[in-house]
């Protein structure tokens, strides 16, 4: 026990900084994959593809209905016992896969709602000028849905960055794992965890700033 050891905290800054790229990399990788998967899932739901639609509903229900930590443990520690091929997967890969599936379930619902929120006249006008369904979706409907969904999707991204800290439970030394390791060595738990909290906070604040800028850009076309 003792007063806050600021020197120790300052010394820890470069240590945690070394692990920041891994944290951001996992989040960015999972975000790209989750977004791609979510668009596909949303499309299946919007166009009510028989059978697949029900499967997607089940998928969304499961991944929204169970904790991310449980999902990660299930994949990383549980699955290889049933399917030996999964034993070759690293902690980082498992974390990215888990984050992808978990957040894709949430994002698919936001994207689906945003697509359904685009006025029917936009589909009709696209069809009337001779566009295919895919062209209408890619060029007219999705861009407008993106504007509606962007704030929510960015919130999920922020959530995802923070959730990468769970990768530490799969034995991955990312920012949280590094803080834990340092704290265990020095017994300076408060300083180490306070510093890692500040790291997450700064990253999320930077993103929130970018989010506000993006929303301004995306709504430019709709200003009166």
């Amino acid at each position, binding site marked *: 026990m003792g007063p806050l050891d600021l020197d120790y905290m300052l010394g820890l800054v470069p240590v945690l900084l070394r692990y920041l790229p891994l944290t951001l990399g996992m989040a960015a990788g999972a975000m790209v994959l989750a977004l791609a998967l979510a668009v596909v899932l949303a499309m299946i739901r919007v166009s009510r593809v028989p059978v697949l639609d029900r499967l997607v509903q089940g998928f969304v229900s499961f991944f929204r209905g169970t904790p991310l930590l449980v999902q990660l443990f299930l994949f990383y520690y549980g699955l290889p016992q049933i399917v030996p091929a999964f034993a070759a997967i690293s902690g980082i890969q498992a974390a990215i896969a888990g984050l992808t599936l978990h957040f894709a379930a949430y994002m698919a619902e936001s994207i689906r709602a945003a697509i359904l929120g685009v006025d029917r006249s936009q589909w009709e006008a696209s069809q009337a*000028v001779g566009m295919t369904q895919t062209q209408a979706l890619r060029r*007219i409907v999705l861009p407008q849905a993106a504007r509606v969904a962007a704030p929510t999707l960015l919130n999920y991204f922020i959530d995802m960055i923070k959730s990468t800290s769970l990768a530490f439970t799969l034995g991955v030394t990312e920012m949280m794992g590094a803080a834990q390791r340092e704290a265990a060595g020095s017994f300076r738990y408060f300083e180490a965890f306070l510093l890692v909290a500040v790291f997450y906070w700064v990253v999320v604040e930077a993103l929130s700033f970018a989010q506000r800028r993006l929303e301004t850009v995306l709504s430019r076309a709709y200003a009166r």
Partner: protein
Amino acid sequence: MIELQGLTKRFGANTVLNGIDLAIAPGERIVVIGPSGTGKSTLLRCINFLDRPDAGTIRIGDLTVDAARATKAQILALRRRTAFVFQNYALFANRTARGNITEALFTVRRLPRAEAEGRADAILRDIGLADRGDAYPAALSGGQQQRVGIGRALALSADLMLFDEPTSALDPEWVGEVLDLMRRIAEARQTMLIVTHEMQFAREIADRVLFMEGGRIVEEGPPAQLFESPRDPRTREFLRRVR
């Protein structure tokens, strides 16, 4: 030559189009009038399959589509020979005025950029919006939006232009400029099928006026004849009420 045969559309138990037969000569300008809910808009929307007809055939030039057996490719082909002007404009909200005009030229017609932009310039001048090309729909007045809607349709050089009550959603102050633009298109002998309540306009530009009621064409003829001496009592009753 454009020909509809036995075009039929039902919404549930309600037959909205009851076997419409219609031949349209190239360059012919036809105005459809009639009470609300008698299938006028549905007729237009069935011709390009915005509403899928239940039966009948649609022929545009060498393309014949049997409604009951229409394939995706046929529907696409039909839409690429027609152009549609919507009552509520339905401009692409994420495209500028210019972008609305060029969109299909790029994606559907696959025109090179310079050619598409050149055509857009010409059309923006035609519709009197040369200086508003970079404005998004939300920044345009109703009349300007509908002129862009017409410009977008014009850009397609379609065999048949369909106008679905193009001035009905407009504030009265914008109706004149839209009708003026349509008048100029009519003068260029573009083949047009127009649903409108603007009787004076119909009288001026139509080669033929159709009166529809109950999903059928009740009476048709040149405007002078149909407006001055309608034969069917239902036509007479309708014209008496709208005057």
